[in-house]
């Protein structure tokens, strides 16, 4: 009996360890802990918004800063008196980077929590899978995933905060054409985001006078891409174009260095994070990608509203979490949250979910961190090529491309 007790207590300890992080993120955001900071907020019903984020699994490197950003801004909004006197509550759910989980968590938010709108998910696959449940409920969704398909496969309910792949692919291919790198060796990850980029490059390369000489794919769980890169090398590519956002993307520059490939590597905004540079080490030097201006706020133009929004957000983020956001994803969540919050501010009491949707669509010239958002009845991405700048890895960090 004593032996069993010992085993059971060891198991209990392990369970506590395991459930601690899960419990922290699976329930509610910190918004609940600071319900009504301002005196005016007391008494009024809270506005409840749901967020489905990938806090665990393959996309956790994106989802965790997104959660941080939302927690931070909800506390700030409530400290300043909430939205027209209503405290804001954001209930954050973890989809574990999994499509089925995303649907289940969305259903829970709609049926149990009666949320007004849903922010998320982090990934394309999840964002697309969630829309059926969302369409039934008739509430707006603001996705934080970057694939074109999210706004191209148009739903009046679905908005998107990252620059869509269409925008980034266009700017990136134009860059390759300008440098005369016409033979493109394409390597993409086997996920929703990667497939979206792969299709877009295949369809539009010819418009820029480019040819895809080799089209390779890798799995997020792969440990080695030298095989794919060998085939690209053999096909006579001038440049390797990589459309990927998962952690395995950092293996590509390393494998290129190991193979002695000295052609340039150009990536997507999916690698716009310090983790990519740190993982790839010296091999990341010279990698180019196009993304928003948040990684180098001076690019907004000092003193512009976006510059002020971004720098103030970065400072507050650094103060709370000890370091500034090391990627663009926290900014996508900031934009997603404020697109909903600003619309809620403009609405009178007693609005319906469809009023909220209409109001989000009326967003015009909102200075977000990803860029300046102007939605229309046909454009739910709302950004333009002006919101993108080029970056190159220089001395172990992303620096503006001259």
């Amino acid at each position, binding site marked *: 009996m004593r032996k069993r007790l010992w085993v059971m207590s060891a198991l209990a300890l392990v369970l506590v360890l395991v459930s601690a992080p899960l419990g922290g993120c699976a329930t509610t955001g910190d918004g609940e802990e600071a319900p009504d900071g301002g005196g005016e907020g007391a008494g009024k019903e809270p506005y409840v918004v749901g967020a489905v984020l990938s806090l665990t699994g393959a996309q956790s490197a994106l989802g965790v800063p997104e959660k941080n950003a939302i927690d931070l801004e909800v506390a700030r909004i409530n400290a300043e008196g909430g939205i027209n006197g209503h405290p804001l509550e954001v209930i954050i759910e973890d989809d574990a980077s999994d499509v089925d989980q995303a649907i289940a968590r969305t259903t829970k938010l709609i049926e149990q929590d009666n949320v007004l709108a849903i922010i998320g998910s982090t990934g394309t696959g999840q964002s697309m899978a969630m829309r059926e449940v969302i369409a039934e409920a008739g509430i707006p969704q603001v996705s934080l995933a970057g694939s074109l398909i999210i706004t191209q496969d148009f739903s009046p309910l679905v908005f998107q905060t990252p620059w869509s792949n269409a925008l980034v692919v266009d700017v990136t291919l134009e860059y390759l054409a300008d440098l005369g790198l016409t033979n493109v060796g394409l390597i993409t990850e086997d996920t929703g985001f990667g497939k979206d980029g792969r299709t877009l490059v295949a369809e539009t390369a010819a418009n820029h006078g480019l040819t895809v000489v080799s089209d390779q794919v890798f799995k997020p769980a792969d440990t080695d891409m030298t095989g794919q890169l060998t085939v690209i090398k053999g096909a006579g590519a001038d440049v390797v174009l990589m459309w990927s956002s998962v952690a395995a993307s950092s293996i590509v520059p390393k494998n290129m260095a190991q193979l002695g490939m000295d052609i340039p590597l150009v990536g997507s905004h999916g690698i716009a994070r310090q*983790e990519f540079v740190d993982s790839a080490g010296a091999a990341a030097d010279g990698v180019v990608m196009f993304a928003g201006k948040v990684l180098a706020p001076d690019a907004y133009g000092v003193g512009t509203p976006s510059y002020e929004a971004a720098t103030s957000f970065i400072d507050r983020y650094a103060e709370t979490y000890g370091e500034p956001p090391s990627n663009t994803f926290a900014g996508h969540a900031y934009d997603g949250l404020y697109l909903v919050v600003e619309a809620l501010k403009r609405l009178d009491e007693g609005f319906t979910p469809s009023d909220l949707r209409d109001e989000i669509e009326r967003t015009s010239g909102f200075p977000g961190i990803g860029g300046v958002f102007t939605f229309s009845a046909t454009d739910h991405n709302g950004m333009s090529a002006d919101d993108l700048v080029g970056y190159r890895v220089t001395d172990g960090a992303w620096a503006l491309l001259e």
Partner: protein
Amino acid sequence: MEASELLQLVIAGLKNGSIYALLALGFTIVYAATNVINFAQGEFYMLGGMLAVFAFSGLNVPLVAAVALAVVTVAGIGALFERLAIRPRKDADPMALIIITVGGSLVFASVARHLFGSDALPLPEFTPGPSFVFAGAAIERQTIWIWVIVTATVIGLTLLYNRTRLGRAMRACMENREAARLMGIDTARVVMVSFALAAALGALAGVAVTPLTSTRFDIGAGIAVKGFAAAILGGLGSPLAAVAGGLLLGLIEQAVIPFSSVLKDVVALAVLLLVLFVRPQGLFRRTRKEKV
């Protein structure tokens, strides 16, 4: 395709295959002792890399010591896992034990995320430097380390099985656990040692690969599938068969890439299914008539 490209693909296949082989060895050793497929094997691989990164970057231990520390610690974790999770249910149906190992793998991954975070963590190469070029194909230094480790492991295991008392006890358990127990062999100890050994090999693979790929709390499950497939190809028998299964799987994957890298995993798994249909005992295992 040029000869140098072909050679490059073969090198990539042998490199990935060696990693699969080390995992396959872990599956094989535990299976031999317990008839259980240990699905936590991939987590030992993950923990090996994680602990080496932690010791090297967090505790500033020299790389060699960090590697040794990681392997020894994970071996201990493997033994502890057997003691706490497997032994209390040792008479249960193998299926129940397999489910326990699946649960164990989830626990390991969650604890790793809790302790080390969700970012990919890098480790420097054992011997940094440019790749060697051989007939137009590049071999990175770390790959040579991986090959050395696999070769040394096979030699070590063969010696263990054939020359030592413990190894002979392990082989006896492999043949017939009940009879081994009746002959006075401490089968409980053999099982624990098997888990520790399998965990150490998984950790060794993880440590050897981390300089190439970085490591993350969630990489265990993906690599476990590959190691399991390699073990099945080899037939869950001798160490050499496991290594052959791993290398074969690695080579098949690379052979598919020039045609379609999308289908790489699909074709590799289709080959596995085919093997299971034609030779359920694996490619490298002789069938033995069961005496009634």
